[in-house]
Each structure stands twice: as structure tokens, then as C-alpha cells.
């Protein structure tokens, strides 16, 4: 029934971070770095490795906005929507990105390359509007600047 296929990556991460409960979030974080989200199978395998329930893994993961349990693209764009960025033209930036990538907020491009999401204050209020693409912040955005940034990513 449940033929256990070895999950190499999960095993490797458990070896790196340990197998106690406090190892859970570092493991999930590294899984997201590799796969951009937490798949059902990965969560089951982590649960098995740490000897905790899969529901526990799911409940913990879904608490954290960056530990996506829905499939995301290779590059996850998170635009700050909190007040300073909202005041300084975040909506325009959002529209620009939507237009260039032919994407709506919350969606992922068909080639699985880009996902577009909103985030809460990412700590660049003096250089608003700002966004993160994966772990890299981009600030003082203008439609032109964003176009340039995306062009570089599209080439990758």
C-alpha cells in the first residue's frame, strides 16, 4: 500500500538540521528553497522522518506565509501592500507586473516561472514601493525599473 520511496532531500535536510521538533521549521524552509513550496508527499516524508503527525506538519507550515503549501513558480514575487508602499504607488507596480507577466495576483505563470503575491510590510518603507523576489529585495520601484528587473529574470 504505502510503499515508502526514499525522499533523499528530506533525509539530507533531517541529517543537516536534526530530527527533533525544533528542526521542523528549518527543514521546511530549506524544502521551500529547493522546491518553492511544500508538496503533500514532502510533508508526509518530513512527518515520518521526525516521527510527528502529518497534520502537525501541515498546521505548522500553513501558519507561516512564506511556507507555501500551494505550488509556486521558480520566482515568487511578493509586493508589499502595507501603508507606506500603498501610498507610494504599489498599485501601479502591481499592474505593471500583471501586464508584463500576463498574470493576476495570486497566480503562477503556465511555465511555472513566476508567481505574484502580496506581502505585508517587508521593512523598506523609506524606499517604497518595494518587493521581494524570492529572498532579494527590490526598492524604490517605478514601472520602468520593474520592467527592467523582470526582463533580467525572464532571461534566466
Amino acid at each position, binding site marked *: *500500500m*504505502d510503499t515508502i520511496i526514499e525522499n533523499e532531500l528530506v533525509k539530507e535536510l533531517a541529517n543537516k538540521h536534526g530530527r527533533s521538533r525544533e528542526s521542523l521549521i528549518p527543514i521546511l524552509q530549506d524544502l521551500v528553497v529547493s522546491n518553492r513550496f511544500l508538496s*503533500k508527499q514532502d*510533508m*508526509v516524508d518530513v*512527518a*515520518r522522518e521526525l516521527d*510527528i*503527525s*502529518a*497534520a*502537525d*506538519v*501541515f*498546521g505548522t507550515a*500553513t*501558519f507561516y506565509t512564506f511556507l507555501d*503549501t500551494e505550488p509556486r513558480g521558480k520566482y515568487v514575487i511578493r509586493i508589499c501592500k502595507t501603508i507606506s508602499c500603498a501610498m507610494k504607488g504599489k498599485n501601479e507596480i502591481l499592474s505593471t507586473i500583471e501586464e508584463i507577466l500576463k498574470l493576476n495576483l495570486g497566480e503562477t505563470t503556465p511555465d511555472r516561472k513566476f508567481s505574484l503575491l502580496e506581502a505585508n510590510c517587508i521593512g523598506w518603507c523609506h524606499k517604497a514601493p518595494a518587493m521581494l523576489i524570492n529572498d532579494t529585495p527590490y526598492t524604490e520601484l517605478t514601472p520602468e525599473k520593474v520592467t527592467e528587473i523582470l526582463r533580467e529574470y525572464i532571461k534566466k
Partner: protein
Amino acid sequence: MVNLSINGMQVKVPEGTTILEAAKTQNFRIPTLCHHDDLCVAGNCRVCVVEQLGAKALVAACAAPVSEGMQILTNSLKVRSARKHIIELLLSEHNADCTKCYKNGKCELQDLSNEFSVGDHLLLDLCNIKDYTIDRFSPSIQKDDSKCIRCQRCVRTCEQLQGVNALTVAFKGDQQRISTFEDLSMAEVICTNCGQCINRCPTGALVERTYLDEVWDVILDPTKHVVVQTAPAVRVGLGEELGFEPGDRVTGKMVAALKRLGFDSVLDTDFTADLTIMEEGTELLTRLKQALVDKDPGVALPMTTSCSPGWVKFIEHAFPEYLPNVSTCKSPQQMFGALAKTYYAQVRKLDPKDVVSVSIMPCTAKKYEANRPEMRSSGYKDVDYVLTTRELARMIKQAGVDFSKLKEDKYDSIMGASTGAAVIFGATGGVMEAALRTAYELVTGREVPFEGLNITPVRGMEGVRQASVLIEDCKEEWSFLNGVELKCAVAHGLVNARELMNGVKSGDINVHFIEVMACPGGCLGGGGQPIPTNEKIRKKRTEAIYAEDMSMEIRKSHENPEIIGIYKDFLGEPLGHKSHELLHTHYTERVRY
């Protein structure tokens, strides 16, 4: 000791006492929702907030320990205003369809709202904006998110009491909800259907899947012959729903009521409990013989009981490598069902397709068990409908039967006679005790060496218990057991079952026979029993079970005349061909989550 004042009254309590407990000593009941006697403190509903003079914020009475000189007001203006708001908030995200709701009249949110006369919809209705789901996929449990107040009692129950962890709190903010792995339905995850979550849910968010209407339909169908079986634990719990106290035995009244509801034959699961002892006892002795005489290295010991379907599903998910150790015997419910449409139908000269078999159980997992695909040995679905103790009480009320005034009645036959050994199945340790009473006598020809046949070492509320019986001076054919110390272990509550199985796995626990009941206290604390439940109530029910045992004429399963009869007339011998066909089953390995 700590000195404090509550509502102006001086109180002296030990250090570490919570404000809630301290108030109780002064006969002040502070309302709560997320608090439960069986569970650890949560402090999240905030209903129990009280005023502490000098503090900026209100404090949660259930979580805050008392401190020297503390001055508490439990019903001040600030407290009342906060409490009203909190109830308003809860109602605003609650689907209050009380007139249709199964928990109407027994809902803690309803009681609280009524206490504070809340219902004017002062705030916005958040319920219709949300995307709620009702999970009806499980045959045992219904989960309705629109009624959830997020007290997390169910999560704590599943985690601490049962160690199953099928439920979790997921997401956060306005998306926060009680859910399962990947938001799957209860039917698709490790949920064992034990229903302990239902017993502790304050509202109608978690209730059993009910089959009342279906059962009324068949009772009122003149072409159907409806037989009903009643589990041991029902007779010591049913009374609580119908005006009696916990611990009151209502067996006779229950039978009388069932007859008045219109069942064609009122029979007893206790009968097949006795049958289970015959089959399972023989199975154990057979395995022991294989181990000790044939020296078969492949024999699966320890053997575990299989009458608790919550336990069976648990082991299928969590310890599938031990499935060979589980007794192949069906549970008494399922043995009954298989026989109802074969043996019973034969004797009564009925066409089995017109026989409908209903069972009254203290259990919600039995509903799942009855629907298992392998439970069709009779050629039909062996048990058609399973009702909980709570559902039966509802039917009795619906029929307008004045339960307390009923004159006691007796079970019908065949399959209605039972023994004291059978009724103790309802308590943790009972199956073990019943099995020992029979097996010991079978092997030695003597009664078990315990006063009054009461094998007290296997009784009690300790989570995991071990006991042993030395077997000597056996009958000729059982001589291989001479000098063998038969070692047993008993666990109740799945968190203890897990501990026990881990002990077996590691080798720390080395026994021959294991009894596991999924529910704390055994079946008497089952998911289908009256709500509320707590240690005191379960203790009272336990006392009732053993009192019932003492009151029975026959105390050992093998002396039940109807049992002797069914082997003579129908089955042949334990583990014989017919038994294997009808009374034994197999198990399925399931996913870990």
C-alpha cells in the same frame, strides 16, 4: 498557601491554583468555553476573563494562577461588557441554525448566549461571507466548520488524550481554522473515528453521522424484520440522557423502550461478546501452542484484541507491521450482524434480505466498522445501521416514550442471553478479564484464582497496565502451558495504546496478550456516549459495569447456554469452518497521515 479575595470574599488556596479553581471553592462558577476537565489549559476563548483590580487588562481565569493579595471581580461591569462582546463575536462567525442543529439544547454556546441574552446581531454577520465546508464523507463523524468556535478542544483531545493528531489548527488570521492534513476530509486521514472530539466539542461543529431517519423508515416498514443489538456500555450511559444520574443502570428500561420503539427483536451484543471470548480465547491458545510446542518462529505474539474499531483503524495506520498480531476475530457487533442474517434468520425462518440489523453503540467508530467492505459475510451488509447512545435517547424522546416510568423488560432470544463476563467488555480491562475467566478454566479445569472471579489487577484507570497469571496443573491436552506465566497488558486511550505498542516494538513490554480500547475508560467513555464526559462520570459508569457483572446469574462466557447452543446447532466448534466464514476478518494497511 495563597491569600486572595474573590468578589470581596477572602479565599485561601494552595499555590498554583488557577483563579477559576479558586472561585469554585467559593461556589462562584465562572463561565468557560475552551476549558475542559480532561484537557490542558488553552486560554484562547477569553470567555472566562475576570477583572483583577490594579491590572490594565482582564485576566483569563482558567489560565492565571492566583497570587498573594490578588483582588478579583468575576461579574463587574467591565467583565460583563467584555463577556457580552466575546459572545457576540463568537455568534457573528457561527451558523446558528439551532432549530435544525443536532446539539440544540445541549450547546455550550447556546447556553452562554442565553445567559447573557445575546442575539440582537449587534455586529456584522461574518458567516455568510465565509466559504464554509461541511464534511460528511466519514460514516462516523460530521465536521461542520460553520459552527466551529475554534476553542481547539478537539485538537487538544486528538493530540493529548488520543495521540492520533488527525486534527490541527491551520493557517492564521481570518483564515484560521481547525482542519486535517491538507484539508482532507476526516474519512481520508488517520482519524480513527473514536469520536472523543465529538464528546468534547461545545457546539454542533463535531457530531456523529446520524441514521435516525433511516432506522425509523425500516422500523415502520412492515416488510422488514428489524433486530437490534445493544452494547454493554450503553446500558450504563443511556440513563444520563433521560433524566438519570451517571452510574445508574437502566438495562431493563432500555430493553422495554426498544420494544416500544417497534423493533421486531431486542437482542444483546453481550451475547456475541461471549462468543468473541470463545473464538478469541481459542485463537490465543492456538497461537501459544504454535509458539511453545511447534516452536513456530512466525507466530504472531503478543496477540491483541480486535473489538475496538478505533484501535483497529489506529493500528492499520500507525503500526501496520503489527497487523498479524491482531486477533482475526470480528468485534461482537460484527459477529452479531453476520449471525443475524444467517443463524437468526434460519431459526426464525426469515428471508435474510428482509432482515435489517441495527446496533446501539457507545461508539462512533462502529459506524465506520459496519461499513467496512469485508463486513458482508452473511451475503448482505452484516450490520445495516449503527446508532449511538445519544441517538437512541433521541429516538426514545421522539417516540414519546416516558423512559423513567417504564417497567423493566427482558431481552428476546435467541442471541439475547449473556453473562457477567460479557458486560464487562464495556470497561477497560473487561475483555482481558472475560478472556482469562474462560481460558484459565478451559486449560486447568479450575476457576481463575481471584476472589469472586473479579480479576482486579486488570481493572482500573491507569493508562497502561500489566498483569500476569501463573498457569499450572493443566489438563492433559494443555500440559505445554504448565508453569507458563501468562502475561497481559491493557491500554485505554490511544495515546496509551501508542505507548504500549512502542514498548512492544522496543522489547520493553514483553507480553502474550494485549487488550486495547481506543477510548479513555473503555467503551463506557466512547465517542457515542452522553455528553459531558469527565473522569468522575467515567468512574461512576465503571462502577455500574462491574455492579452489572456481579448481578448476572452466569459470570463466565463458556457457561452461556445460548452460546453452547449456537456451537451445537450451527457453528460446530470455535475456529471451525463456519466460524472462519462468518466470525473472522482481515485488516488493511493504511496511509500514515
